């Protein structure tokens, strides 16, 4: 048996942690070594995520016969020690996270990585927190990984400094601190009632609660749900998002586009475990559907109302969260697979959009937002904004404007969900699944509401984005053709190519995600896999 393979679920956490520790020790002046280390770590994470995907797809049944990779930390048996669990959903999220991480790390090498200290170690810690949150099978450990990724994100959101960033960061940190306290209260209450923190064990015990304990548990689950909804940016808990994401520097904002999805992932994970044992439907129950619709409507209105391109992408993030919450709030398992496909395309598209918008903003001469008259009247001159400097070494690509225009069109099509890109495939499969469930069951009003809201929000998206596109590309005055480095254009290119690949292989990907949804729908598989794993060394034996 391959000995290293059994440690596979541990690697996405250990590798970035060790790399971050090494990066802190290395001086900032040793740039080449630091970059090599960072890239080695991220590439390793991509590789490990791919291996885990193969494991969960059933390519290595010798080690984990249930196709769910379980790892006992410290070799303690399941309900007592902390476990790491990688099922199909977790493996897909890991691959998405490390892929997006790679693209935005490439982008950051052009300039942002040098705009302040400790960018690279914080970046590794952010990836570690994200990977850990996807992998962990323990509720308190989930909180710890949330804090790791949040602490790293606090540092990264301030990267580059400046008044706007600090004020937006202040609001972001305050909101997330409050949400973390809610998470702690909920976890403590759940432990107080059930006496366990292991998610698999919790799924078993929650079903056996009755009377007062049951009501207390439902209250705890509701608080937990609120904490996750803050992270997932559900209306009315999402006013922090557009500003914070708009003022963060581009590569950071790009990675942040997966952070709201961690909240959705947690809702989905706990919902799948708690639902069928008769425990409350606090996650993904009928409450999630109207919340998702409200979020979607809020995102669309915000998108139409705002002029600022980066804030517009922030509202796109909210819209994608709303779509996911609404789709996951529908009854039945058929929507989960298409919703996960939508999650993949929207994260990739939004990540690309944040990086793209920053490059497009460089085409605008100073004062393009301000009338020429008021420029003279107030005697303004170019403040040489450090964010906009264009004189960085690197290989420039030809036909910069053509590339920017094409990439912008791709992003707009992806976000609005128009053919031929996978945004369309995702929305079409989601809506047709919603209508199919309504054909067999009676309640079709919810399905038609979902169809109407998703389509109208797509229309709002395409109107807002085409308006932005016209403003950015077709305003004839003051357009400066920027020099784009290969690293910057390449990272956007990678994300968009990944989207196109998703469109080409949409069939197999959707089939895989549907299988992932089926695994989620049968939590007994997860519970059995976690509980069946025996420690390598028998209990009571001395080392």
């Amino acid at each position, binding site marked *: 048996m391959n000995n290293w393979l059994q440690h596979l679920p541990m690697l996405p956490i250990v590798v970035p942690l060790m790399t971050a520790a090494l990066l802190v020790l290395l001086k900032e002046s040793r740039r080449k070594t630091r970059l090599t280390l960072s890239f080695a770590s991220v590439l390793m994470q991509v590789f490990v995520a791919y291996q885990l995907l193969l494991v969960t797809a059933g390519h290595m049944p010798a080690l984990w016969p249930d196709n769910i990779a379980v790892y006992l930390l410290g070799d303690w048996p399941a309900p007592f020690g902390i476990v790491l669990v990688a099922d199909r959903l977790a493996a897909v999220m890991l691959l998405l996270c490390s892929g997006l991480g790679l693209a935005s790390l490439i982008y950051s090498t052009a300039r942002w990585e040098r705009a302040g200290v400790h960018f690279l170690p914080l970046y590794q810690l952010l990836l570690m927190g994200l990977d850990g949150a996807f992998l962990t099978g323990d509720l308190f450990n989930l909180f710890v990984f949330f804090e790791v990724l949040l602490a790293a994100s606090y540092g990264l959101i301030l990267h580059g400094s400046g008044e706007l960033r600090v004020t937006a960061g202040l609001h972001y940190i305050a909101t997330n*601190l409050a949400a973390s306290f809610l998470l702690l209260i909920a976890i403590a209450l759940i*432990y107080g009632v059930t006496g366990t923190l292991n998610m698999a064990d919790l799924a078993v015990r929650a079903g056996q609660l009755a009377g007062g304990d049951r009501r207390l548990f439902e209250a705890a689950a509701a608080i937990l749900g609120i904490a996750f909804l803050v992270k997932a940016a559900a209306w009315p808990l999402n006013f922090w998002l557009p500003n914070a994401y708009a003022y963060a520097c581009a590569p950071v904002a790009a990675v942040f586009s997966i952070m709201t999805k961690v909240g959705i992932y947690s809702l989905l994970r706990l919902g799948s475990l708690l639902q069928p044992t008769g425990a409350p439907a606090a996650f993904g129950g009928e409450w999630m559907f109207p919340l998702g619709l409200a979020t979607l409507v809020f995102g669309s209105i915000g998108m139409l109302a705002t002029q600022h391109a980066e804030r517009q992408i922030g509202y796109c993030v909210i819209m994608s969260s709303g779509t996911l919450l609404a789709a996951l709030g529908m009854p039945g398992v058929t929507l989960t697979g298409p919703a996960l496909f939508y999650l993949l395309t929207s994260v990739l598209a939004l990540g690309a959009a944040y990086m793209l918008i920053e490059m497009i903003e460089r085409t605008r001469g100073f004062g393009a937002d301000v009338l020429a008259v008021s420029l003279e009247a107030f005697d303004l001159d170019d403040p040489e904004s450090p964010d906009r400097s264009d004189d960085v070494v690197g290989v420039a690509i030809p036909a910069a404007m053509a590339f920017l225009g094409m990439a912008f069109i791709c992003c707009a099509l992806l976000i609005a969900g128009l053919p031929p890109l996978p945004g369309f495939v995702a929305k079409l499969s989601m809506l047709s699944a919603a209508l199919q469930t309504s054909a067999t069951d009676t309640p079709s009003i919810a399905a038609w509401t979902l169809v109407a809201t998703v389509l109208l929000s797509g229309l709002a998206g395409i109107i807002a984005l085409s308006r932005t596109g016209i403003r950015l590309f077709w305003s004839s005055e003051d357009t400066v053709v920027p020099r784009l480095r290969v690293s910057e254009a390449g990272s956007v290119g990678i994300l968009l190519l990944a989207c196109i690949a998703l469109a080409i292989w949409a069939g197999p990907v959707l089939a895989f995600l549907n299988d992932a949804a089926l695994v989620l729908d049968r939590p007994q598989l997860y519970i059995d896999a976690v509980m069946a794993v025996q420690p390598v060394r028998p209990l009571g034996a001395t080392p």
Partner: protein
Amino acid sequence: MEIVLALAIGVLTSSGVWLILRPRTFQVIIGFSLLAYAVNLFIFSMGRLRIGAAPVIDKAHEIDPSLYTDPVPQALVLTAIVIGFATTALFLVVLLASRGFAGNDHVDGREADL
């Protein structure tokens, strides 16, 4: 003892919530500190209140679980204290940076129009 603890948690939480809704950054950070105390006490109380019981099992004597208090919430509260302290300290730094940039201590970086 239950009523004292419950009152303490309630008073800390309500003062904390009131303070984080105030417009001055200093009030907000004190509010978060009070909330952190309340949450830590709450986690601690989830292991049930016992007086004079140790959380660490003594192997020298025969082990009777009823003599010991639940060690898990104590481990959790330790982690929560460390994390809460670190994030509050980080918030303090951001708060000072914001004060330096904006020249005032309003949470929005500018005074509200009166």
